[in-house]
């Protein structure tokens, strides 16, 4: 009998710590599938963020570094400049990339560093009990916006991909989602395109992935996926934002 589905070799056979319905484990797997398909497991060096994915190196079976909160692209840049022949990616959440690490991601993109960034946008700080993130939707209730995000008090959801796309150094930026099987496949295609982009020396690439957080959205996994389609993707539209 032909085997049609199996664990990617780059993904360790261990249970993850993620909540049920969380998007992280889907994206972890997709990255590993792509790495296997490109045959680059021994050439990859990943940088894990501070946030829910902080111990991604427990799941990924390739070289990894941790990074201080938000400095993920700097650590990735340091590695890539030393090993330009390796495939280096950072994996960051919205607190890491859009709040504490805003300066770092902008300047890394602006220098046109030939690295890839996987940006998980779930609109909350999951690791620290669901506080408001720069990407939290208006009216969304979090542990630091209990009556809902208020523009007057908290400002607007920050569109990092659109912002970064203004920089000449950023070459490929796409926003995808893991809310349904079709979108999961599109996410995988975007991950592959971004890594190939780096391997071809084309410069900075970033894939933003809208990802469910049922725990801190207060929804069932199914309803969390529905929320991405009904609400989140209205504010953060899916598609290629830049492909230069």
């Amino acid at each position: 009998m032909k085997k049609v589905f199996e664990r990617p070799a780059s993904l360790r056979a261990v249970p993850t710590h993620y909540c049920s319905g969380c998007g992280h484990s889907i994206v972890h797997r997709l990255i590993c599938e792509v790495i296997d398909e490109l045959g680059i497991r021994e050439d990859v060096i990943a940088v894990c963020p501070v946030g829910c994915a902080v111990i991604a190196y427990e799941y990924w079976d390739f070289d990894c570094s941790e990074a201080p909160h938000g400095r993920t692209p700097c650590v990735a840049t340091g590695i890539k400049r030393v090993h330009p022949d390796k495939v280096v990616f950072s994996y960051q959440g919205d607190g890491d990339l859009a709040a504490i690490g805003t300066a770092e991601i902008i300047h890394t993109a602006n220098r046109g560093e030939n690295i890839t960034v996987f940006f998980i946008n779930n609109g909350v700080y999951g690791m620290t009990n669901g506080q408001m993130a720069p990407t939290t939707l208006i009216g969304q209730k979090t542990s630091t916006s209990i009556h809902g995000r208020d523009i007057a008090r908290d400002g607007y959801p920050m569109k990092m991909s659109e912002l970064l796309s203004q920089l000449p150094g950023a070459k490929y930026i796409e926003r995808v989602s893991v809310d349904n099987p079709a979108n999961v496949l599109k996410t995988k295609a975007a991950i592959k395109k971004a890594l190939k982009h780096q391997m071809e020396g084309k410069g900075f690439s970033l894939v933003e992935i809208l990802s469910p957080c049922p725990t801190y959205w207060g929804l069932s996994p199914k309803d969390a996926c529905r929320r991405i389609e009904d609400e989140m993707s209205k504010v953060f539209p899916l598609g290629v934002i830049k492909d230069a």
Partner: protein
Amino acid sequence: MAKILMCGNEVIGEAAVHAGCTFYAGYPITPQNELTHYMSFRMQESGGTFIQAESELAAINLVLGAAAAGARAMTSSSSPGISLKQEGISYMAACQLPAVIVNMMRGGPGLGNIAPSQADYFQATRGGGHGDYRTMVLAPSTVEEVWNLTQLAFDLADEYRNPVMILGDGILGQMMEPVEVVRRHVQAKNAAGTHKPWALTGCKGRKPNVIRSLFLGEGELEELNRIMQMKYDKIKSKEPRFESLYTEDSDLVIVAYGTTSRIVRSAISKARHEHLHVGMFRPITLWPFPEAQLQKLAKKSKAFLVVEMSAGQMVDDVKLSILGQRPIHFYGRAGGGVPTEEAIVEVIKDILKPKSRKRVYA
């Protein structure tokens, strides 16, 4: 080889290249800019990487990445910038990553001024950031010593897999002195990843390497700390460095480091002309502090005087070394003030001939 005139900051750059440094990231701040200027072209010439970072936070983390990848990496700054780098230094100490960090100290606290200072002694020798860690601290006093200690810093960092700090000040960084430098044109020594089996190079033919400081399992972080403390104990026993001057026959031993030790040296020469038995103990490593070596002098000398360009920081380590066996005096200038030779001679006289004089120092 002929000596040439170079300022301390530039010599650090050339010495780093000579030591095989292939990665430098920095951010402008006075009084260390000459080093960043120098590295901007010298890294390019020698096949390394120069990045002018968007902040000190970025610079130290670029260095963290390069160090994790196995390169000999360096960053530099001055006091306020070093405060920002402390986050990264703590991570590097915990991840056991080697790197060289230069602090050309200026007056503080806060934005302070750009005058020379030694007020970051506590920060440099006590770890500086969060958690139980130490960085080795080398304190050159001449441009020639800058050349030697910078190279030593890279070797020590690699040997102990720990960040090493070069602690100077605005005078040492900007003063030009004759120095014999060897300009290497090609990077050869210590290519990225060599002899560093822990470095991130891609997991070809081996199990994946992970650089991390997060240990959530019961007892795991305690174990890391135990390993780090064992390493620090080894450093404390093997690596203290110092210079002594006339300590064999001195009633009073002045303890001073870096730029201050140069002024003290001149003051001692004057005092000796006046038949005052004064000597100097100059720590070259501030951490590990040459505690045992200084302790030995307590048997011979009657008193100690600590001179610093601070409100009194190294004086604590001197007290911890002498353990109350002899009186310890302090004379310092804070906020960018530089002690003069004359003032130090006056303080020496106050201590050695107290009855015939009115106290002029606090």
